[in-house]
């Protein structure tokens, strides 16, 4: 667990018996776990296990069929995504969802949406209030870009950036909302080993410097086992394990899930070399 000062407003997250159905398909089935404030908490599992679905529930994109999610004493389930965003929950998407024609700074400025107030009239008329706000928040967003190694690409349209850079913009945009809870969906997918190591370092720095909670969905076992305080394992929508990285790697059901689904590596072995290079 982190040794740094926790932000006072960072609350525990409780996922309580959550079920999500798509017709006959049970994408999540009575899943419960909790995430300590200030933790780096990983959610892992084979493809289609329901990890992104869990993130969609946490950010309000999907409605639960049953169950409840609480962030401190606020109930998240039943709220709209933008209402959840206002509570300080931010997310970097697995499938990049940036505005390709807009620059890095412009994309990050979208993250400032909940922190700013300029409306159609004040922005359209360039009122001083709106311009000052824009200037202040642009400066902050540039710092965040710098932190994510995007400092020399501030004014490049994100559509022309490399895949790895776009992933970094995703993370930077989520960070730009100054979140209390950061959801990262496969932040190192498509990155090489060195980039992955740097991103792992960045995630730890985010947690340590800001004292916020990070939930990480990732297939790269090396990264997960290296930085997570706690790991929850999903398989076919069910929670099959929850514990420290060591406990989870020794769990027979986890090993079975990874072997049984046609994967030739178990999480422990995968941890040794990382799985990012397996598929192009």
């Amino acid at each position, binding site marked *: 667990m982190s040794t740094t000062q926790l932000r006072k407003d960072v609350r525990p997250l409780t996922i309580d018996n959550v079920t999500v159905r798509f017709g006959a398909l049970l994408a999540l089935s009575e899943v419960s776990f909790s995430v300590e404030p200030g933790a780096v908490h990983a959610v892992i599992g084979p*493809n289609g296990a329901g990890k992104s679905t869990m993130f969609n529930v946490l*950010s*309000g*994109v999907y409605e639960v069929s049953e169950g409840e999610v609480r962030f401190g004493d606020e109930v998240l389930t039943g709220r*709209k*995504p*933008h209402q*959840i*965003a*206002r509570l300080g929950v*931010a*997310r970097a*998407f*697995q499938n*990049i*969802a*940036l*505005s*390709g*024609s*807009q620059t890095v700074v*412009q994309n990050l*400025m*979208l*993250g*400032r*949406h*909940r922190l700013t107030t*300029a*409306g*159609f009239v004040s*922005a*359209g*008329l*360039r009122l001083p209030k*709106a311009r000052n706000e*824009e200037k202040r928040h642009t400066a902050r967003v540039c710092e965040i870009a710098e932190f994510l190694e995007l400092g*020399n*690409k*501030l*004014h*490049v*349209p*994100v*559509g*022309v950036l490399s*895949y790895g850079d*776009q992933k970094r913009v995703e993370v930077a945009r989520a960070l730009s*909302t100054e979140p209390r809870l950061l959801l990262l969906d496969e932040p190192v*997918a*498509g990155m090489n080993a060195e980039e992955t190591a740097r991103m792992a370092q960045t995630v730890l720095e985010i947690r340590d410097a800001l004292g916020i909670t990070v939930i990480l969905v990732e*297939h*790269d076992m090396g990264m997960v086992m290296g930085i997570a305080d706690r790991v929850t394992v999903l398989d076919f929508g069910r929670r099959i394990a929850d514990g420290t990285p060591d406990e989870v790697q020794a769990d027979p059901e986890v090993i079975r899930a990874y072997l049984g689904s046609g*994967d030739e590596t178990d999480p422990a072995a995968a941890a040794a070399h990382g*799985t*990012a*290079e*397996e*598929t*192009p």
Partner: protein
Amino acid sequence: MSDTSTATRLVKGVVLLALLVVLLALPLYVEEFWLRTGFAVFAAIIGAVGLNLLVGTTGQLSLAHAFFLAVGALTYVYVSGDPGGSAIEYGGFGLPPIVGMVAGVVMAGLAGVLFSPIAARLRGIYLGVASLGLVFIGQHLLNTWTSVSGGFNGRLAPAFDLFGFSFGGNEEPYLAVLGVPFGQAERLWYLGLALCALACWFASNLLRSRPGRALQNVRDSEVAASVMGVNVQEYKAKVFLVSSMYAGLAGVLYALSIGSVAPESFSLLLSVQYLAMIVLGGLGSVGGAAMGAAFVSALPLVLQQYSGSLPFIVEPGQPGIVASQAAAFLYGGAIVLVVMFEPGGLAGLARRLKRQPRPPQESPPVSTTSSAPADSSSGGTPR
């Protein structure tokens, strides 16, 4: 990188300034036909820039633009016009034209607000289909509510004036600049130019700021926008309102440009012409919408004016192709060419012509309007 972006902004500013100077000086040099055409173009630009905010920026298709133009135009003639008519009698408040103009914009906005609960809930093409209904409702109202519209033959639009300075009719007070008398056409030109510049300025400010970014992200990914804190429904409703107010102002200027309003002017064809303008211009950019509007609105007028010297165009009533048909063929063809070869439209073409050797922008791997490699991400997911 930021050096180049300030440099491009500087170049852009200089070009805009030069354009403004030319437009300001033009009435001293060109004949009345071009000034009248120019006024019609300014009106169209305002409408197109507004539609572009909705369709190009936010990705919401609307076929109702003609309806909101009609609301603006009719409100203007009713509020500022006098009662009259012989066969069909119509009413009017006879208020100062500036009141009518503001009322036209406000009423179009109100009509937009009434429709916005629908606009907020529908997406893209579905909104297009739903908005189609408004055009037919508008047509029906125009034809039946004759005390406002004057019925089938329409009614005259009162000339504009501002605090005693007339933009038509009596040409009072007399004004001449550098020996050129400033009559109706000259005055309207400046009125149109001022309103058009204001409308473009407002829209481009919007695009470069918080609401504009939110709208563009709603277009590129509704889910991402909402997760980043954007109230998607609210923004769709608001941009619909803004777009209809732009249409309202365009409608008022349209009435001034033609000098009268008639139901047939506000048919579905007008909505389609506005869509043609923004597609030709390049969805999403203010400058593009302006270029597209200039092309589509001026073409039939110019062809008509020069029909005598153009071999394939005949006077209305004679067998052959009349100017408006020829214009429709031309811009129809232009749209097909644009969609096939330059989806960025006229704005994209302009960008390409002045493109500097900037390596990262030379070969964008994806269309610039979509959230780039959405599919490659799922393919590249390692297990």
